[in-house]
């Protein structure tokens, strides 16, 4: 358990990091590495039927970091967590914990705890016994276990339910117990496998900030799995986007959102418009693209982009405006969807592609268009990017 002073230090260094982030400069990280995954592959089955759940994955997770694995169902998130926890072994590659290869350690010797997707609370024990289980297994004296259990109960605000059976508490409370149980032995790293997916929207929001608070208070490295991009963006220090057993991009939320490495990432995180176009001359990672309408736009190129033939241009809905006259593209309003804070206008472009524009709402006026209106789309300068397919 880190001391209060340790917590403060930790918070201060995170704050510094964030200040640097807002200046959009990737900072030098003084932090040590908690987990290093080196060239890890995992195959299930043998021979013809072999299935590669993880394909040469390398990623480094820093100490005290809230690190998120984000990706669609079946992309290998749980598999990676299971390898780190020791429930399964990599076919190839190494996993290091604080610089040491943990391959020879069985799960019960790894200072890593898991919050399971199904919670996996012991149904024959009370809330208190569940939370104390890890410490008891570590052979801690009774008094210490009791004190720590009480402390954890306070941390997750469950003092009143200590002696309840785990079948007699609500889903959100079970989630907290699972969290407290995993935190009680003060692991070096906490693995959370979609811990919030079973909760309803409001409770999920509540638990999100609760998790964030717990991570800051305990200073433990969190590796958090989700397939909810919003959850990933709001909670994480850094995100790894995964697809089909590979890590496509690792970066801070803003990097993932504003500088997606490829088309998959752009499509998976937030809403995106894809437009066909041709590239002009490339200079310093910038170029001019010609759209099907003949409009020319300045655009940035994704890192490592190698131009070959026609390209796909990516524009976020909030980087475009719907206007009556002119615009980079012309089309017809096909649908208008009201979202409270903003309104989405779906435009059927003259080249038959669909384009979504997001417009901030205001109380004094509506979006100004009705379905069927002729409309122009103006793309913000710097709004267009060219990405790898």
């Amino acid at each position, binding site marked *: 358990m880190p001391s209060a002073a340790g917590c403060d230090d930790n918070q201060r260094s995170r704050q510094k990091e964030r200040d640097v982030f807002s200046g959009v400069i990737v900072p030098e990280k003084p932090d040590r590495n908690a987990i290093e995954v080196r060239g890890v592959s995992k195959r299930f089955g043998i021979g013809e039927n072999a299935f590669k759940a993880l394909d040469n994955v390398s990623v480094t997770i820093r100490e005290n970091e809230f690190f998120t694995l984000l990706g669609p169902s079946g992309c290998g998130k749980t598999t990676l967590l299971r390898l780190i926890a020791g429930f399964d072994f990599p076919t190839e590659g190494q996993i290091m914990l604080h610089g040491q290869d943990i391959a020879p350690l069985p799960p019960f010797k790894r200072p890593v705890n898991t919050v399971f997707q*199904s919670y996996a609370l012991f149904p024959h024990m009370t809330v208190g016994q569940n939370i104390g289980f890890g410490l008891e*297994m*570590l052979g801690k004296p009774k008094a210490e276990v009791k004190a720590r259990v009480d402390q954890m109960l306070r941390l997750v605000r469950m003092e009143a339910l200590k002696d309840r059976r785990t079948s007699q508490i609500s889903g959100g409370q079970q989630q907290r117990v699972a969290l407290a149980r995993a935190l009680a032995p003060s692991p070096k790293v906490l693995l959370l496998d979609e811990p919030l997916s079973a909760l309803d929207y409001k409770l999920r929001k509540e638990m999100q900030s609760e998790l964030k608070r717990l991570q800051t208070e305990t200073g433990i490295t969190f590796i958090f799995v989700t397939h909810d991009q919003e959850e990933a963006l709001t909670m994480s220090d850094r995100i790894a986007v995964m697809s089909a057993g590979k890590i496509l991009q690792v970066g801070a939320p803003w990097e993932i959102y504003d500088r997606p490495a490829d088309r998959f990432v752009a499509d998976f995180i937030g809403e995106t418009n894809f437009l066909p176009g041709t590239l002009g001359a490339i200079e310093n990672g910038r170029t001019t693209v010609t759209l099907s309408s003949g409009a020319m736009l300045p655009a940035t190129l994704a890192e490592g982009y190698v131009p070959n033939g026609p390209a796909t241009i990516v524009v976020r809905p909030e980087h475009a405006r719907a206007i009556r006259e002119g615009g980079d593209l012309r089309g017809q309003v096909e649908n208008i969807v009201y979202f409270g804070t903003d309104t989405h206008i779906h435009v059927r472009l003259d080249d038959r592609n669909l384009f979504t524009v997001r417009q901030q709402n205001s109380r004094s006026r509506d979006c100004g268009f009705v379905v069927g209106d002729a409309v122009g789309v103006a793309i913000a300068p710097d709004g267009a990017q060219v990405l790898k397919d």
Partner: protein
Amino acid sequence: MARSFSVRAQPGFTTVALICFFLLYLPIATLVVYAFNAGTSIAIWEGFSLRWFHQAWNNSQVIDASIRSVQIATAAAILATICATMAALATTRTRAYRGLTAKYAFINAPLMVPEIVTAVALLIVFSRVKIATGYSGLGYLILAHTAFCIPFAYLPIRARLEAMDLSLETAAADLYATRWQAFRRVTLPLLWPGILAGLMLAFVISLDDVVITEFVKSGGQDTLPTYMLGQLRRVVTPEMNAISTVFLAISILIVTVFFFISRKRDV
């Protein structure tokens, strides 16, 4: 649910159900009633009396056979349940592999092999062993009973294991429990109702066995069922009814006790 399909709404359901109940329970009811007959007939009612219970109680052969039955059943049930628990753990806590189905079949073979075949086979083997070792105690019967009780103990235990969330054991391992600690603290307590069910089933099956016991027993090793079988060949008095009634009462008692234990254990 009221409008959904229900067999109970099918024509004739009640009639068939009633007939089945009568066929099942009428003979048993008759048997119990005549255990209290004052006369010596098992078919003509001559008034109420407890004389046959008395007689059975004072019949040293009955008491002897009962004690032996319980001894054998207890030993066999415990041994069979231990074997069955290990077998169930070995066959469920593993990835599916070629030969696993064969293993299931092997464990459950005693359910499929005709009892008389097992009985004759055991008779032949045990008679050789008896000659070779000179030992002729209850061991043979206990061993034989254990063998055919294993599948009965195995089934409920395996069912319980398969219904159990595997991630519980994973969670225990994650929380620093060694394999043995995880078994002791998590698997075993959750498996307990299944083990009790297996134990009880094995006990009742062993208590009830006639064929194999008849073949394997040495002289003077009658169990209650084989003793009763022997008696039936001579004169049938309501004493048989009295013994059967007590037998029945004990069985019902075991089942009831088990029911309450398992319900309390079921979280």
